[in-house]
């Protein structure tokens, strides 16, 4: 694992979860910016656990863009677990709810897709890192400082604290500890 500026190079063997996430992301990125957030970030960086879903944050999008994304996803063999009709699925997102997409005839693994809904989400989406995998495959993730602050300050479950600890160790020497503290203050203030 190599940290070069805003890029992390990982010459890892891809898991089925990585391949699934990349299939989805390769469609999504044609239409909108995005950032992978939460547990899959630590898994991508080597955490010894699995997850049934990959959380992805996107900016607010209009119905037309959503229709294009959903049409491409369907062509690639994805379906929405929550609803089927384009407008119904879009309304979930518009109402700030997450929607889940899986490959046809399955529910696990799935993508939990959500639009930004507050200033913390906007900040998360504006400060990202690129993870370069083998064969020029890439995944955009939230910056690690925000992931650590959110897991340690807001979520705080044993699993989240373990995720944060893993990131702190594998990214040691590449983290802005003052930024983590500033995020913690900001999150504390926002969610209190």
């Amino acid at each position, binding site marked *: *694992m190599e940290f070069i500026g805003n890029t992390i190079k*990982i*010459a*890892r*063997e*891809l*898991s*089925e*979860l990585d391949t699934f996430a990349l299939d989805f992301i390769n469609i999504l990125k044609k239409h909108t910016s995005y950032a992978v957030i939460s547990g899959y970030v630590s*898994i991508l*960086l*080597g*955490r*010894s*656990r*699995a997850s*049934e879903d990959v959380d992805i944050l996107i900016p607010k999008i209009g119905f037309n863009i959503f229709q294009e994304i959903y049409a491409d996803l369907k062509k690639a063999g994805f379906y929405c*677990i*929550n609803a089927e009709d384009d407008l119904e699925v879009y309304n979930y997102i518009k109402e700030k709810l997450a929607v889940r997409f899986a490959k046809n005839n399955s*529910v*696990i*693994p*799935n993508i939990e897709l959500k639009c930004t809904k507050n200033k913390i989400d906007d900040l998360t989406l504006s400060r990202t890192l690129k993870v370069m995998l083998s064969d020029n495959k890439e995944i955009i993730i939230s910056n690690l400082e925000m992931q650590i602050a959110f897991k340690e300050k807001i979520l705080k479950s*044993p699993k989240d*604290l*373990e995720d944060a*600890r*893993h990131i702190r*160790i*594998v990214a*040691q020497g590449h983290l802005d500890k003052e930024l983590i503290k500033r995020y913690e203050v900001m999150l504390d203030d926002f969610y209190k």
Partner: protein
Amino acid sequence: MTFINDNNAERMNFVELWAEYVLNHSDIEWSVQQNVLINSCLKSARMTRKEYLAMKG
């Protein structure tokens, strides 16, 4: 509470041990082992859409 605290501490110890392993070994070495866990978990997690949505509330 002691059991839960002890269990969480044990888990955290392993998380730290594994993260050090990731830090000090090649990406291929750790990812091959990680994938045994991830791929087997995904294979064993079979449920219907209805069951999944009910689980997620």
